[in-house]
């Protein structure tokens, strides 16, 4: 059978860091093709190329036998490729029906007519959603249904679902799978991205697995089982990242317990999670996207606020604390190094020195109200050497640096505050291989110096190589604690997927 979509040697670079590398991918008519991989493996990027959301750096995209280049998602949609996003792309202030017909309204449209046809359409899909409801009043699951309904309504030949079931209840999931089978019977091709391996095994005809932007396995679903999928997802031989097994004696012993978290909750993202952090060791936290790992530690760092009622307790040095701003946490010596340096880490129009100086100012470690500009240069020089930040000149704006050097600036900005607890969130995301090794060394040195280090990561080799204990986060809580001496990538992944 001829493939509907055929992608050949697709490569996509973000700022010269490849997100997908030379990937071949195709999908046949009436096929459900599951696309699996860890966070950051390149699944979303690959499908975004297919749906015209991003354009590939190189490679060929063939659709219905013709080579195509989509300039926008709208073009792809009109050609018949629809993508249902993880973060929904609905207009919150419009009704369900208006969203369904968005972009395809008649020139003169009557709301009543729209509602009636939307009602019939939603019923035919077995979705219990009121077409006159405002999208902003709907929960996550219902929004997802509207997204799906919209893609189906566009009579798309190819529908890409990015984590469609994450927010659905078991009952809704059953309806959703029934719908997928019906679409399939109608000849629609479906790309299905998921972390839930059972679902992929249950519904798909074919499975492709990506790892670090490359295709590592592909074949009919009958050839796979849970074990082989996990092995393909995690087993890697990335240069410079040689996995060394450590036994108990090589792990750092826990020092004093500095931070203890009891039953903290925040909405649906963090649910009654509990754990402790000790001085002089690295606590690795593994979790997939949506597991609440980032939110949990943003609460600890005072960036997010836990529920006011039944929000649980956080004790620092046996003293209960509740932070309303990050400034309070910083004063208590807690520093959070963000996973998203672009939007919440760096001051991009400023120099390295000014970025570092910002940390110093905020921590109140700089005495007095008056600033000496020579301090800024000295700071850039001192920390530039310590963290090996490479730059053409001292006045260069941070936005011009490579990802690795930017990340070092963000880390430096935290370290100048002389913290006692450092929380790294995805410390090596979007960072080149050489800088990864350097950042790992920085993290190790901090723990050796007696600081309490937390490292949140979805990158398994990083977790296994650096952590002295491993916490696994799933559905808003820490579900398992493992020792790196006995943990394997498979064991951790088992605990993290559901």
């Amino acid at each position, binding site marked *: 059978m001829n493939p509907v979509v055929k992608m050949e040697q697709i490569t996509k670079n973000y700022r010269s860091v490849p997100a997908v590398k030379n990937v071949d991918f195709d999908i046949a008519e009436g096929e459900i093709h599951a696309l699996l991989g860890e966070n950051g493996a390149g699944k979303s990027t690959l499908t975004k190329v297919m749906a015209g959301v991003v354009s590939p750096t190189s490679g060929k995209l063939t659709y219905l036998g013709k080579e195509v280049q989509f300039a926008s998602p709208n073009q792809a949609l009109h050609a018949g490729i629809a993508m249902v996003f993880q973060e929904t792309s609905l207009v919150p202030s419009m009704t369900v029906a208006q969203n369904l017909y968005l972009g395809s309204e008649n020139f003169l449209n009557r709301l009543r007519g729209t509602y009636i046809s939307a009602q019939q359409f939603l019923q035919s899909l077995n979705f219990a959603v009121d077409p006159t409801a405002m999208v902003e009043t709907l929960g996550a699951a219902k929004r997802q249904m509207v997204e799906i309904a919209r893609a189906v309504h566009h009579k798309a030949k190819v529908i890409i679902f990015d984590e469609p079931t994450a927010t659905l209840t078991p009952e809704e999931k059953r309806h959703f799978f029934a719908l997928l089978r019906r679409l399939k019977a109608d000849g629609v091709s479906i790309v299905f991205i998921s972390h839930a391996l059972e679902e992929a095994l249950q519904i798909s005809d074919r499975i492709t697995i990506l790892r670090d932007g490359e295709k590592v396995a592909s074949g009919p679903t009958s050839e796979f089982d849970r074990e082989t999928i996990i092995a393909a997802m995690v087993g890697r031989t990335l240069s410079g990242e040689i996995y060394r097994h450590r036994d108990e004696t090589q792990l750092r012993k826990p020092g004093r317990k500095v931070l203890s978290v009891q039953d903290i909750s925040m909405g649906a993202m963090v649910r009654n999670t509990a754990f402790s952090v000790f001085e002089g060791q690295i606590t690795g936290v593994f979790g997939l996207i949506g597991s609440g790992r980032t939110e949990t530690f943003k609460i600890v760092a005072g960036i997010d606020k836990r529920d006011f009622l039944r929000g649980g307790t956080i004790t620092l040095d046996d003293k209960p604390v509740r932070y309303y701003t990050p*400034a309070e946490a910083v004063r208590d010596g807690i520093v959070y190094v963000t996973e998203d340096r*672009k*939007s919440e880490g760096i001051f991009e*129009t400023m120099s390295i020195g000014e970025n570092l100086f910002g*940390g110093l100012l905020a921590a109140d470690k700089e005495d007095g109200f*008056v*600033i000496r500009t020579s301090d800024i240069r000295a700071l850039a020089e001192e920390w530039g050497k310590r963290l090996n930040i490479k730059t053409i000149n001292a006045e260069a704006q941070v936005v011009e640096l490579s990802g690795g050097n930017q990340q070092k600036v963000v880390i430096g*900005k935290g370290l100048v505050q002389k913290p006692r607890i450092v929380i790294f969130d995805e410390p090596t995301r979007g960072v080149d291989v050489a800088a990864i090794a350097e950042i790992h060394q920085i993290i190790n040195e901090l723990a050796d110096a007696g600081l309490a280090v937390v490292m949140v990561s979805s990158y398994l080799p990083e977790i296994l190589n650096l952590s002295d204990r491993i916490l696994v986060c799933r559905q808003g809580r820490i579900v398992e604690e493992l020792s790196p001496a006995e943990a394997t990538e498979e064991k951790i992944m088992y605990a993290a997927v559901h």
Partner: protein
Amino acid sequence: MESNWLSRLKDLNQERIVLVVAVLIFATASVALPGFFSAPNLISIVRSISVLGILALGMSVVVIGRGIDLSMVAIMAMSVAWYLQLLGDGMADHTALLLVFAGVLAIGLLNGFLVAYADVPAIFVTLASGSFVFGYVRSQLISSDAVPVPEGHWIAMLGGLRFASIPIEVFLFAILSGAMFLFLRYTKWGRYVYYAGDNPIAARNVGMPVRPMLVLRYVVSALTAFTAGLLTAASLHSINTRVVNSTLLYDIVLVTVIGGIGLSGGKGGVRNVLVGAALIGIMLNAMTIVDIPLLYQNLIKSTILLLAIIMDGLLNPRDEQTAQQGDI
């Protein structure tokens, strides 16, 4: 590669371009226009931009912090009008001054509080508070559009004050510029303005008091407006509240933006205000000497403002590709 190219373009930044343009106009006007390059005319240029420049100093602090204050002209005119009205009604000078000062402070605090803590966009907050100040003071507190300065009051004396035949407001503009320069560059709170303007989320995460500092900026701009109002009254011996409905507000934004203080925040300083004020001052003066009608002057000013904003957008783009960087 691309970012290097961009940075080189930024070296050839708006500030320098505007400075060159200002010098060019100045040179051309000096040669071509009789009476332009003469001591009285030069003094009148500096004088004409002093009040505008002071207002732009206040605006710049807000804009660098990624905000905007549209209530400045209303605060400037109405606070002084109320003050003069109170004096005219026979209130003691210091009581009246204190009362008006408290009022100005309250409006600044209100603006800042609504922007910082209620998360209302600055443009709406200050538009509304400006209208409120104008409406309330005009309808409840003063009895006519223009309020005169009482005979022999210190404001009237201030207006006549000269050093080396240069009017006092020029010196005040210079002093305030210097003070603002020191504040922005050499104090902790001044630096916070830039961090919050560049990336407010990062500033908060690193532990800076982002919200209290935001309130401070609107208080500063309100107090600057009050100062500018006093100087206006000093040179004109009265304050005309109709100025609220004039193009003055846009002139302030023009001076602020044209010198290279990006509306996206985090960039620029006092130097940019001075350059912007110089260009506008020289240009308006030259246009007046050539006798270009006021309507055309407005047309020219608005074109320049539009060009400056477009240039700002080109030099400081919001790049979609880099915004998606972490999203693989």
